């Protein structure tokens, strides 16, 4: 019995010893534990596959005697399969991103020629993937939507190729070209998803959907813009503490200072992630901004194409909110456990940034979104750096009041349309995400009696629209 008492006492002492450490002692303990994580053999990860993958890009830019530069696309199948293996290793993925972030050109003069060549390449892709009107007329509405989406994307991508394209940009063009060809193939052969007996050929659907999913995965790894981690500092507890019923969270401004602080922290974390991506040494960098928008456009295209491919049987509803309800109610047919909620966030970000980038401004002399971002970053360092979240939030609001973006007559309807499309497609994308509606309800987003989630979403967009346009 004495022995048992002794062992229990030793356990209690061990626990007390651990938890009674000061923060400094914890830090020292953490440091010592971290040192044990260094491999004693000193073996570094094998980067052979990463080097071979990026070396392919070096051979794709050729210059003839006359000084003309020709850029060739990389083989998307090879790239996608290489990336699928590399992405399983954190360190290899980091190295791949680092190497792909290098410019294709060695000097400024060549950089311009590479940009021109890539634009020409995009024009060729646009003409090569064009489907004749009479052929398209026989395709169903959903295929037409997918085709329109890709066509618009190709034009946007062509226009947003940055001044000094990187290997990642070439990867994006190559992957988007592959997706565009898939959509073209479907538009030209609308019957390929039907078996002879008229039933849907689900094997073919899943094959194409998987192909598109792999392309999307590759794009997420190769694009630096995909690293935008909006939810990095999002605190789950702030979600749980926002208790209430109905659409309280959307309509009630009363919340604890702690909740508001958590929200501000989250919001500034997202803003910081974005500003870091479009700056060099804290200064706004136009080339990086353009590249960010270009890559976001490519990512958006991949999501939209994939979304249509994974739900070929989902009828296109006239009321897009009804489609959301249909999906929430579980009326899809294909079970692909391939997306996380983060995909929705990344997709929503890609829509927001690409749409904001071209928000029509009625008065041409006013600030564009790019100008606003630049002005925000150059306005006052304290706007970005103040540690006091409440003060920072105040500065942030003051800045936007000063530049008065809300009075620039942005086309709110246009934004709403984009947002609706984003929600609709994102809902499709989140097939089988398993996200629990109860969690959403905990956030205060619970349909009132007799209303659906679609109707509540519509209301959320009304709020969003009012917020954006209340000073119009």
């Amino acid at each position, binding site marked *: 019995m004495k022995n048992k008492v002794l062992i229990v006492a030793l356990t209690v002492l061990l626990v007390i010893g651990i938890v009674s450490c000061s923060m400094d002692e914890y830090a020292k303990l953490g440091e010592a534990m971290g040192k044990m994580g260094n491999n004693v053999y000193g073996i570094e990860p094998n980067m052979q596959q990463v080097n071979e993958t990026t070396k392919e890009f070096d051979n794709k830019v050729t210059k003839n005697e006359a000084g003309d530069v020709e850029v060739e696309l990389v083989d998307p199948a090879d790239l996608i399969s290489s990336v699928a293996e590399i992405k399983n290793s954190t360190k290899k993925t980091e190295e791949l991103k680092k190497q792909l972030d290098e410019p294709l050109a060695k000097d400024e003069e060549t950089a311009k020629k590479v940009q021109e060549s890539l634009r020409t390449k995009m024009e060729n892709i646009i003409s090569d993937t064009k489907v004749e009107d009479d052929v398209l007329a026989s395709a169903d509405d959903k295929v037409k939507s997918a085709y329109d989406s890709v066509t618009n994307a190709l034009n946007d991508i062509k226009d947003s190729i940055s001044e000094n394209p990187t290997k990642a940009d070439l990867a994006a063009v190559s992957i988007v070209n592959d997706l565009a060809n898939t959509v073209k193939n479907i538009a030209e052969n609308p019957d390929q998803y039907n078996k002879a007996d008229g039933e849907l050929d689900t094997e073919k659907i899943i094959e194409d959907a998987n192909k598109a999913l792999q392309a999307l995965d590759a794009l997420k790894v190769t694009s630096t813009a995909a690293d935008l981690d909006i939810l990095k500092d999002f605190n789950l507890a702030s979600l749980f503490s926002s208790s209430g019923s109905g659409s309280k969270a959307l309509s009630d401004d009363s919340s604890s200072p702690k909740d508001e602080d958590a929200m501000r922290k989250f919001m500034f974390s997202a803003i910081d992630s974005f500003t870091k991506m479009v700056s060099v040494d804290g200064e706004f960098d136009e080339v990086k901004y353009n590249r960010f928008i270009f890559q976001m456009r490519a990512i958006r295209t991949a999501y939209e194409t994939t979304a249509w491919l994974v739900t070929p049987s989902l009828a296109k509803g006239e009321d897009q909110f009804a489609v959301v309800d249909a999906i929430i109610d579980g009326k899809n047919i294909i079970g692909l456990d391939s997306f996380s909620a983060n995909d929705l966030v990344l997709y929503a970000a890609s829509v927001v940034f690409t749409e904001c980038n071209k928000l029509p401004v009625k008065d041409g002399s006013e600030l564009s979104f790019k100008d606003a971002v630049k002005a925000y970053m150059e306005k006052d360092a304290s706007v970005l750096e103040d540690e006091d979240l409440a003060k920072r939030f105040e500065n942030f609001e003051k800045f936007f009041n000063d530049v008065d973006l809300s009075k620039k007559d942005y086309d709110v309807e246009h934004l709403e349309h984009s947002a609706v499309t984003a929600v609709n497609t994102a809902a499709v994308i989140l097939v089988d995400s398993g996200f629990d509606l109860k969690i959403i309800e905990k956030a205060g987003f619970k349909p009132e009696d007799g209303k659906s989630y679609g109707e509540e979403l519509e209301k*959320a967009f009304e709020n969003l629209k009012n917020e954006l346009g209340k000073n119009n």
Partner: protein
Amino acid sequence: MKKVLLSVLVLAMCFSFAFAADKQAIYTYGDIDFTFQPTFSRYNAMGQSGLAAAGRMDSFYTNPAALAEERFGLSLPTVAVTLFNVQKLVSDPEAMTIVNSMIDGTADDNAAVNLADKMIKNLGSGYNTLATIDAGVGAAFGSFGLGANVQVKLHTIAKGSSNVANVKVVPEVNVAQTVALGLNIIKTDALKLQIGAAGHFVYKAYLQGQDAATVSSLLSDDDGNDVQKKLLWNTPTMGGYAIPVDLGVTLSLANDAVRLSATANNLNGTYRMSSYDSFANMTNSVVGTEVFTPEEGYEAKESEKFEIKTPWTLNFGFAFAPNVIFKPVITADLIDMLGMVKSLGSDSFKAEDLLLHLNAGAEVSILCFNLRAGVNRGYMSVGAGVGLLGMRIDATYGWQEFGAELGDKPVDSFTIRFNLGYDK
């Protein structure tokens, strides 16, 4: 502005799906190694080595030839808890403040959720594990061994960064029954040759990957019941069985001071699985009676069958265990020899790659205390144990590789294991 922010948040978390289909879809996770092995504190502390000097209960799954020693062992029960990614948590002052507040009872309502949030963010991209909980009973008497184990493991998969929306938690439950036998083929003062075999009936079940928010909400008092209900009745579950076998042979020389072993582990490790629309449905189907009562109108979906293959490994062990003061034990194992032989033929094979298959460790005993250290594919581990009549407690801390290749993703873990009975 807050409304805009909330709108975006709501949109980011607004969808849930279940498929209206006659057959339950199959969910597989290629990143997860579903091989079942209980957590061995001593073995892990010694750098996952010690095949030739296996503990009594550990020998059921490592080297059953050790049972030929005919030593008595008993676990009534053994309980082990392992937490992963501990170093990042200890290095985070906010996390440790939460832990302290939870222990001294001053934590606020959101402490558990906040801690879970931090643990999720420490997972990194790709595969990781949050925690494992093991419980087992077993007995070794004469040359026989009988045991039963239950293990709950929380695997995680993050595509991209490990934020709350990006991590899926895949809970896995294993229930195993073991019968083991070890025999002396040759037994002289100078030399012993022992062989052993252990057969395990393992029933494995894992749930469809759950978003981190769902898992965290279990920690939230006012939402836990709803989520439990969801996990029980609305979460697709895959379940099935395998009968893996472990074989071992040990050659002992110099009065057991020098031992050489060869083991073949996890032979016949193919699980015959079925898909179920819920954990409750799976349980009712397997048990053959209504353990969980379904709600009115519930109709179970039809199951689909599939297989999960887990690899077998060929391993060699060496131990030097002279019967002198402090009872030192030095071990060195060459693990996964088949994998090494395969890599020998590849162009990328380098001589130093042999080190990647070498685990080594040491143990000394002082009175009732044991101190251990080891190296597992180049990653260090340490451990300590104290055993007094009828009780034993062991603690282990160490690193291991979770990536496909060395250096890809080192992950640390801390195990505390308690045994009521007699085992070493």
